[in-house]
C-alpha cells in the first residue's frame, strides 16, 4: 500500500456510487457502462489517455452534464431524482478555474455562501483564505490574481460548504512545485476528514502518491480498477517493481515511445 493514509475499505456504503454510467454525444459514446464505488476517505485516481472520457465522467458525476444512461448516487442521494440534495454534498474543481470577473475574492465567498446557505460563512471563509494563504487578497479581482491564486480561490469557494464528495479535474495544471505540494496536502487532509475524492490527472507519479484507488479508462470504457496495491501487484506479476506508469501503458496498450 503506497497511500499514506488509512483507506476505509470496509465502509458499508459508497459515498460515490456509479452504476452503468453512459454518456453519448449524439451517436458517439464518450463513456460506456461505467460502474464503480468510492467510499469515504478514499481517493480514486481517474486515469486514461486524452479523449478517454475522464472529464466527461467527472462532469456527469458533478451534475454539470446529464448522463445518457445509468445512475449516480452522491452521499446516498440520486443525482437525477434528488439533484439538489446530491449537489449540496459535492464540489467540482475544473482544470481551468471558472470565476466571475467582476467579483472580488471575498465577494466570491459571500456569493457562494448564499447559494449553499452556509450559516457560518464568515468564519469558515476567513479560515479557508488563511489556510490557502490568500487572506491579504480579499479585495482583489480574479484578473489581478495569478493562475495559482485563481485556483486557490476556486478551491476556497468549493470547500466553503464542507463537501463530502470532491472531484478534481487536472488539479495540478499550471501550479508551481510549492503549489503542487500544498494541493496534495489539501487533498489528503480532506480525505482524512472523510471526504470521498476522485482526481483526474496525467501526472501518474503524483497520483501514485495520493490515491488509494485507480480507475483506468480508454475510449470511454473501464479497462481496470481497484486499489493501488491490487493493481500494482497484478502488473508486478509480469515485471518487478511495476509503477502506475507501467500499469497505464500496459492497461491502455499505449506505446511508451509515443509519449
Amino acid at each position, binding site marked *: 500500500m503506497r497511500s499514506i493514509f488509512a483507506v476505509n475499505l470496509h465502509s458499508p456504503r459508497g459515498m460515490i456510487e456509479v452504476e452503468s454510467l453512459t454518456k453519448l*454525444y449524439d451517436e458517439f459514446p464518450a463513456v460506456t457502462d461505467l460502474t464503480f464505488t468510492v467510499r469515504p476517505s478514499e481517493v480514486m485516481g481517474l486515469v486514461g489517455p486524452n479523449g478517454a472520457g475522464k472529464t466527461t465522467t467527472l462532469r456527469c458525476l458533478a451534475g454539470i452534464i446529464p448522463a445518457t444512461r445509468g445512475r449516480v448516487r452522491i452521499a446516498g442521494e440520486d443525482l437525477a431524482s434528488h439533484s*439538489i440534495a446530491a*449537489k449540496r454534498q*459535492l464540489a*467540482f474543481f475544473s482544470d481551468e478555474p471558472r470565476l466571475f470577473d*467582476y*467579483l472580488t475574492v471575498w465577494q466570491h465567498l459571500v456569493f457562494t455562501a448564499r447559494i449553499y446557505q*452556509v*450559516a457560518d460563512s464568515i468564519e469558515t471563509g476567513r479560515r479557508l483564505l488563511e489556510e490557502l494563504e490568500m487572506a491579504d487578497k480579499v479585495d482583489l479581482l480574479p484578473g489581478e490574481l495569478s493562475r495559482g491564486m485563481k485556483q486557490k480561490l476556486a478551491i476556497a469557494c468549493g470547500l466553503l460548504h464542507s463537501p463530502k464528495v470532491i472531484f478534481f479535474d487536472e488539479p495540478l495544471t499550471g501550479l508551481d512545485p510549492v503549489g503542487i505540494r500544498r494541493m496534495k496536502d489539501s487533498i489528503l487532509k480532506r480525505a482524512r476528514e472523510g471526504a470521498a475524492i476522485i482526481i483526474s490527472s496525467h501526472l501518474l507519479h503524483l497520483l501514485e502518491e495520493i490515491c488509494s484507488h485507480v480507475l483506468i479508462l480508454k475510449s470511454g470504457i473501464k479497462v481496470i480498477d481497484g486499489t493501488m496495491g491490487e493493481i500494482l501487484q497484478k502488473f508486478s506479476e509480469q515485471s518487478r517493481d511495476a509503477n502506475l506508469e507501467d500499469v497505464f501503458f500496459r492497461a491502455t496498450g499505449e506505446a511508451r515511445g509515443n509519449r
Partner: protein
Amino acid sequence: MIGALLYLQVQSLRNRLRVRVRRLKKPKYLAGALVGAAYCYFFFFRNLLAGRRGAALVEYNSAPETMALFELLGALVLLVMVLSAWFFPHERAALVFSEAEMAFLFPAPVTRKTLIHFKLLRSQAAILLTTLLLTLVTRRFGGGGTAWIRAAGWWVVLSTLNLHTLGASFARTRLLEHGISNWRRRIIVLSGAALLLLAALLWLHHTIRPPEASDLESLKAIKYYVRRTLESGPAAYVLFPFRLVVRPYLAPDGGAFLLAVVPALALLLAHYFWAARSDVAFEEASLALAQKRAEIVASVRAGHWHGAAAKKTKKRAPFGLRSTGSPAVAFLWKNLISAGQAFSLRTWLFLAFFAICVGGPIGATQHGHGWVMPTVGIVTAILGAYSLFLGPAILRQDLRQDLANADVLKMYPLRGWQVVLGELLAPAAILTGVQWCLLLLSVTMFSRLPEGDTIPLANRLSIGAGAAIIAPMLNLISLVIPNASVLLFPAWVQIGREHVGGIEVIGQRLIFMLGSVLVFAFALLPAGVLFGLVFFLANLFVGVIVAVPLAAAVATTVLAAEAILAIWWMGRLFERFDVSAEPAA
C-alpha cells in the same frame, strides 16, 4: 517566401469558407443564410443590379459644383484622419499578427520587409471587403454612379489611408528612437495644423470675407461659400494631395476615372515605397499587441462582450448579502455588482430626489404657452417606452452573460427556476429604476399640453402610478424573451463561446428580432385586453383617476402569472440544458 505567406492566406480563407458552407447543413444556419441573403438582396443588391435608383442620382451627383464640394469635403475628412494618425497614437509601431502567426513567423527565417509585405497583403483582404460594403452602402443611400468606379475609388482611398497609417506608425517609432517624445511630436503636429488653420483664416479674412447672413440663408449659398473658401488660398494647397486621392471615387464616367486614377495611384505607390522600405523594429510592440488582443478575444469568448477591452475595477456591492435567505437574491447582488456602481441605491435616491425637488417646482411654476415642458414630458415618456425594447439588449447581466459559466451554475444545488429568477432580477430592477425615475420626472414636469391646457396633478399621478405598477412585470416579460432564447437556441444567441459572423448570422439575428417582437406582442395581448376592459368599467363607476392604476394592477397580475409560468418553464429548460451539446459554429 511570400509564396508561403500567400499560401497561408489563401488556404485560411478557403478553409473558413468551407466551414461556413459546411455549417449550412444545420437548419438554423441555412434559415439564417436564406433570410440574410434576402435582406442583403432587397436592401443593397437590388438597387445595384437594377441600377434604377443609382441612375436617378447620377445626374444630381454629376453636377460639377456638387462634385467639387464633395471632393473638397472628402479631402478635408482625409486630412483630419491623416493628422490624427500623427497626433493621437502613443505606442510604437506594431503590426497586427495573430498569436499563431507570431509563433510561426517571428522565429522563422523571414525578413522584416517580408513580414511587412505579408501584413499589407493581408490587409488587402479586409480592404476589399470594406470596399464592397461601402460601395453597397453608399449606393443604397444615394451614392449613385457606376458601381465599378465607386468600388475602385473606395479601394484607392482605403489603400492609401492604410499605407499612410502604417508609414506614420513607422515614422513615429523612428522619431521616438531619435529622442523625440510623443508629446514633443504632438506639439509639432498641433503647431503645424494651427499655423495652417491660421493662414487659411487670415486668407479668408483678407481675400474673401467672413461669412455673412446671405452666405448662410440657403443650402446652395452655404455650399457655394464653403467651396470658395476651400478652393482658394492655403487651404487649396493643403487639400490638393487629398483631393487627388478622393477624385477617382467621384469620377462621373470611365474616361474621367482613368484621368483621375493616375495621380492617385502615383500617390499610392509613393506611400507603398515609404511604408515597405521603413526598417523599423516592430516585433516587440507587435508581441504586446497580440497579447492584448488575445486577452480581449479570451474575454469575449468567456462571454464578456462589453467589458472585453476595458480594465476591470473593483465595484462596491449594492447591499450586504447575508449567507442565508433566497439564493435568487445572491444572483441579483452579483449581477448588480457586474452592472457597476451607477446602479446603487444612492444613485436611485439621488435621481428620485432630483426629479421631485427640481422637476416639481419647474412643472408647477410654468405658465402660458411654450414647448419646453411638454417636450420634456413627451421625451421622457418615449424614453420609458424605448427602454422596454432597448433595455434588454443593453443590459445583459443575466443568463446571456452567465451562460458562458454554465457548468458552474449547473453545479449549484438550486432548482432551475431559482437560477433563472435570480438571473433576471438585476436587469429587471435596473430597468424598473430607470423607468420610475423617468416617470417621476414626467409626472412632475409634464404639467401642460403644447396648446397650454393644464394637466391636473391628480391625472398625472394616476397615469404615473399605473405605469409604475405595470413597469416591473413588463420588464420581466421583455427580459424573459432573450433569456429563454438563450436556453432554447444557445447557438443562435450571442453568449460568447464562439464568435461567429457572416450572412447567416445577419439572417439569424433578423429572425430572432422578429420572433422576439411577435412573442412580446403575444404576451401583452391578454394583459392589454384585460386592462382595456377594467379601465372601461372602472372609468364608468369610479372615474379615470382610480381606473388607470386599477386597470394597471389587474394587467400586472396577468403579466405576473405569465412571468411565473415562463420562469418555471425556463427553469425546466435550464435543468435540461446540456452544456456539452452547446453551442454552435
